[in-house]
């Protein structure tokens, strides 16, 4: 039997685990957090102003045009949705595979999912010409005949997929937190805290019979989330794959997008975890370098899967013999006016993660932080490449054109980080960042005195 490393470092007992995890929630924020929060909030306010301008004045403020009718908003939507995948993946799929190491990072990863989906969800709503009419995308009874929606449109699938995904992710995340809220309630020193966390905990007491249902529910939700998480990015990829545009109309898109989503999601988890480790040093015992290493392995693997997808697109384009496909890949994408974005993508997504072949690199916090940032940049550019380079030169050369990048494009991209980080930082302060109830059972893993993990 292979000797396992400890999942939790330090000489913890149950009480110290509770204390450690509850500490950020129960003590006033430190300077570091406050600074970050103020920065994020400023960015969020800026974001709101920018979105206000776009809604008030029109989509023309962004760089979208003919033929590139989708731009930054859709790119960033797919980017955030992709990031939102790692959370569910870590908590659901790894749960099903009984990967105990997931417990320390699952909560934060799920939170990241929820916030990323929230950030992402804004984009398709706001990128429409008349966002105040977005509710028309839902099939609700109405006085127009009634006039329904077009269930054949991938955008409608998106509506269903993203809203289902958001709902189920939030439910999954929340159900996971219910016992921890009970802990917080029981530790609460003042009545208001007690009431709030009491309400959030739904009156959870932790009886064995309830735990039995709870575990079953958690398993079921994990089981349901797994196909869901795969379906969501599949459906997001349908937005492109179902269209007939060369460069979009590709059967490899669903797995390619899912792999890319996992890739970018894990990169974002690594980014955030390194930040959490810096901001809350007590979490170093829970989010250990071993955890980070495992995630880096996944990043490298999925990075190569994505690289394979890039290559296979070229092969298929060549093999199909279709002149439009061939043009998009062999002329436009890799060597056209947007070649720079293509090569940024290749560098960031395929080449840079290769450093993780070396154990030393995998376990180096600065290296993994930098690499994860590059992967995030690369994955944003992947969507940029798919969206913009495919659209900018399609069938009739007469309608070719370039994306007219404007100040507002950059502003919505960076502003969205304001929303995400604000939510994330708030989460770190008000919710237990590591699952208290889940960490405790894995305490003995890798310890000589315990009965070992399974």
């Amino acid at each position, binding site marked *: 039997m292979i000797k396992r490393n400890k999942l939790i470092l330090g000489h913890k007992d149950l009480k110290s685990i509770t204390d450690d995890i509850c500490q950020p929630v129960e003590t006033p924020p430190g300077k570091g957090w406050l600074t970050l929060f103020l920065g994020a909030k400023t960015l969020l306010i800026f974001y709101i102003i920018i979105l206000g301008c776009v809604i008030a*004045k*029109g*989509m*023309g403020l962004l*760089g*979208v*045009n*003919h*033929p*590139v*009718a*989708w731009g930054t908003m859709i790119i960033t939507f797919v980017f955030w949705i992709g990031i939102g995948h790692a959370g569910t993946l870590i908590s659901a799929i790894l749960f099903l595979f009984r990967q105990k190491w997931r417990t320390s990072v699952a909560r934060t990863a799920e939170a990241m999912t929820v916030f990323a989906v929230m950030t992402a969800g804004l984009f*398709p709503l706001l*990128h*429409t*010409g*008349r*966002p*105040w*009419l*977005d509710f*028309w*995308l839902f099939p609700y009874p*109405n*006085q*127009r005949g009634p*006039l*329904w*929606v*077009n269930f*054949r*449109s*991938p*955008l*409608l699938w998106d*509506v269903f997929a993203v809203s289902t995904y958001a709902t189920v992710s939030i439910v999954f995340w929340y159900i996971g937190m219910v016992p921890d809220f009970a802990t917080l309630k029981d530790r609460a020193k003042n009545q208001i805290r007690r009431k709030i966390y009491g309400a959030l905990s739904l009156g959870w007491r932790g009886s064995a019979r309830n735990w039995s249902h709870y575990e079953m529910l958690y398993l079921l939700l994990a089981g349901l989330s797994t196909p869901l998480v795969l379906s969501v990015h599949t459906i997001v990829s349908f*937005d492109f794959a*179902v*269209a*007939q*545009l060369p460069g979009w109309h590709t059967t490899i898109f669903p797995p390619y997008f899912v792999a890319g989503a996992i890739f970018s999601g894990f990169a974002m988890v690594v980014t955030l975890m390194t930040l959490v480790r810096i901001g809350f040093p007590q979490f170093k015992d829970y989010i250990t370098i071993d955890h980070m290493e495992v995630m880096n392995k996944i990043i490298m693997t999925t990075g190569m899967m994505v690289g394979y997808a890039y290559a296979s697109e070229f092969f298929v384009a060549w093999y199909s013999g279709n*002149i*439009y496909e061939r*043009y998009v890949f062999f002329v436009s994408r890799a060597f056209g006016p947007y070649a720079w974005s293509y090569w940024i993508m290749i560098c960031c997504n395929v080449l840079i993660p290769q450093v993780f072949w070396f154990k030393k690199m995998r376990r180096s916090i600065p290296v993994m932080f930098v690499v994860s940032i590059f992967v995030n940049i690369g994955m944003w550019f992947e969507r940029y490449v798919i969206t913009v380079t495919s*659209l900018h*030169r*399609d*069938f*009739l*050369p*007469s*309608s*070719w*054109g*370039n994306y*007219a990048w404007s100040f507002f494009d950059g502003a919505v991209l960076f502003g969205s980080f304001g929303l995400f980080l604000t939510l994330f930082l708030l989460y770190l302060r008000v919710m237990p960042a590591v699952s208290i109830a889940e960490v405790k059972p894995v305490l003995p893993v890798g310890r000589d005195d315990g009965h070992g993990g399974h």
Partner: protein
Amino acid sequence: MSEKNRPEIQRDQTYWRSLEHYNQDPEFLKLAETEFQSSPLREGEAEDGVARREFLKLMGASLAMATASCVRRPVQKIVPYNKQPEEITLGVPNYYTSSYFDGSESMGLLIKTREGRPIKIEGNSDHPLNRGVSIKGQASILNLYDPERLRGPKKNLFNEKRTNKDTIGANWDSMDQDIATQLKKGGVVVLTGALSGVANRAVVKDFCQAFGAKHVQFEPLSHEEVRAGQKACYGDDLVPFYRFDKAKLIVSVDADFLGAWLMPMTFSGQFAEGRKDIETMSRLVAFDSNYSLTGANADIRVKIKPSQQLDVVLGLLHEIVVKKGRSSHAGNGAVKSVVDSGAGAAARLGIEPALLSQIADDLWENRGRSLVVAGGLPTLTAQAAELQIAVNFLNQVLDNEGKTIEAKNANVGLQGSWADMLALINDMKSGQVKTLIMHKVNPGYVLPKALGFFEAVRKVEMVVSTADRQDETSGEAHFIIPDNHPLETWGDAEPVSGVFMIQQPSIRPMYDTRSFQLSLMTWAFIAKQGPKRLQEYETYYDYLRAVWREEVAPKVARGKSFDDFWLEVLQKGVVGEVGSASGRSFRTDAFTSIKAPKAATGLELVLYPTVMMGDGSNTNASWLHELPDPVTKITWDNYASVSLGFAKKNSLRQGDVIEVTVGGNKLELPVNVQPGLHDDVLAVAIGYGRTAAGKIANNIGLNAYTLMGFNGTKAIASGLPVEFKKTGKTYELANPQGGQTMEGRQIVVEATLKEYLKKKDANIHRHHIWSLWSGHQYNGHKWGMAVDLNSCTGCNACVISCQSENNIPVVGKKYVLQGREMAWIRIDRYYVGTPEDAEVVFQPVMCQHCDNAPCETVCPVVATTHTDDGLNAMTYNRCVGTRYCSNNCPYKVRRFNWFGYAQNIEKPLHMALNPDVTVRTRGVMEKCTFCVQRIKTAVNTAKKENRPLKDGEVKTACQTACPSDGIIFGDMNDPNSQVSKYFKEERAYGLLEEWNAAPAVRYLTKIRNNGKDARHEKGEHA
């Protein structure tokens, strides 16, 4: 003052226009009594902000009000007429025939009005000459509603040097009194543009007689060179009528007869006529120094520089007369001595000698059925007259005179002259001119500063202008008496002698303006001078009728009483026909005395008019500026076009700014690297760089007239040596077309005539298309459109017509650069062949109304669906603006309202909006609808009359505008419809057919009659 000299506007309260005033409403053809009772002005003034009728209501953008909001809608008012004019039915358009003269071509019009407002200008289908209307003719509706028109007469408050521009409103009575007094002093000159029409000319003639005035006509695009050539060769000072329909071989030496020379709308129709039957289609050979629209449509295009124009003609003559010894002039030594200089022309032109002799042989082969033309600004070189004489001689040799060139049917109106203008400046300088009356001229803009027009005009005691705004010239006038817009006033026109057109007003004058003609009559009346008819009539309408009674009716009334004749005139808008022709005798000595061309080296200037701007008059219309140039596709600018070789040699790139110096005149122009241009040519469009035209046209591009040179009284626009200097600056040129070549895709299918004769669907690569299911059935009508690429000349008339019909906004240069142009129909221009000798193909692309429309499938809110008559419907009010449809459209014909364009329309330009088409709000997608409003109107009319719809009853806006009948629309379910027949033609193909979107548009292969065996010599995929 008596009632007499009041402007017309004051008079229509009573029924002053009696029986004669008819309209051409297709249904009722009723007596028009007082159509002007319903002037929008009066309503607009009285109830501003009140939705008087549907019209104003529709005008406002469809606002958020559209949604099922839970609040009561704002209170709207309905304001009925006091007395309703009989011919007006709310919501039903009236049509009036009229005419439009652009200084060169007179076109028959059909003006659509709704509730008394003209909203659309179309060609008069009964007209014997033109079918469509030129771009400027269609856009003249914007001139009518131009917010910057003067709203009444103005008096200039001059300082001593007459350099300031302060004006006050003038009082009609005292102004007329002042002018009449001044006129009596003598020294009167009436300076006008070319005048078309019997009465229009007669009134000026009468006026000149009254005051002993001199009439000077000036047109920048004057055709003076043609007249001079005709005069030298035949003794006739006229511009002959050309018959491109009868010619089997057309050789054009820089005459852009399909674009901007002489009468392009008529000629386009003729040209298409001569090519309709493909097996016997004509061949067009163009020797082109600028890349003109004619060059773009040529079967064989040879790039030349202006100094070679004469060489071309002499070269052809040399081949025919000397080398082959053909024609009766073969032995003539004098002729030979001139023609000999044409030997070796092919080498100088840089073409295969075989090609030139082939063209010469063909010309001889087709003698009597060929046509050689030269003319226009690019031929206005130092040897312009020689070129014309040589061309006339060549036509004489080829026996074309009287067959394809008809002097008898000449246009007698085109008397504009640079020489007369220059002489007038001298007269003014010397103080001989005491009063100058200017009408439809803008010498302040056109004439280069060095000619001293401004100094000269300031020496004139009294200057009167009839410009509709304070433009470059009328700023120098003591009085600006704004002329009525052509849509507001009576007039006439005469495109070729024997064909007479009426210009009928379709709206009461919007402002306190007065027609030029009535002004002349008024002054004559006050001064009590001049012929009786000038003083006798109260209105110009009465005068015009009198002139027609005296001068026109005897020629063409064919025994009808004048009242019947007049009724017919008003109904049809045009009477008479193009008569037969006969040959004239040629003065050979005119030819034998011409000098041989000198070989020139170095860069040469070519000035040319564009189809949008023309000579630069009336260009304060946004449609014109946003319309892409047919060949370069660039909008909102003029530029210096140079060849690829030249650009390479001097390392110039598109948009680099160079300083161009021609004879001491400098201009800093951006470079357009133009394929297919001669390496020694630098071509610049005129008509830009207005400084006092209005908000839209001011400072768009640069005024290239300033580069012209003058040799005595001879104006030289082309062939002048050019020096250039790089400035290091760059400038963005807005070209809405992205790719310039077809990248080897099957987009525009072309075949040579030989290929076509062998195999009718030559070069069409058909795909086997199959589907998993059978598709929907279309039982009633199923609308379809066929576009004959062999007829399409790429003239852009359809684009403007669509814009006018469908309320399509203009976005401006900034947004064209960002790819936000809104045109529903665009004409794609692709270069084919080698870049140095690039040939051009055109393809109008509108929504293809695919049965399996990719756009519909992806719309989440069913805003775009398919109708049961085969239309791809776009429901603006349902659209939330995801723009997915645009992404998924293979033809990229969908347009998005990135901003609220409609809300920004300046009043009263909103009156030009079509009330039958919803004005789109911000954030919705729009696209070609196949003019569904026209379909609906026609279908409803047929239903109302209990009869089936006739083929051809529905005509889309683009179709009606097409001068060459290249667009056919109709019911595909009717096997006998014209469109079905086109669909069945073997050269019909669908764009991107293999994608199986099943488009409802078919294109018909373009056939190039260039004598070659195959279109593509080197592995180009067709």
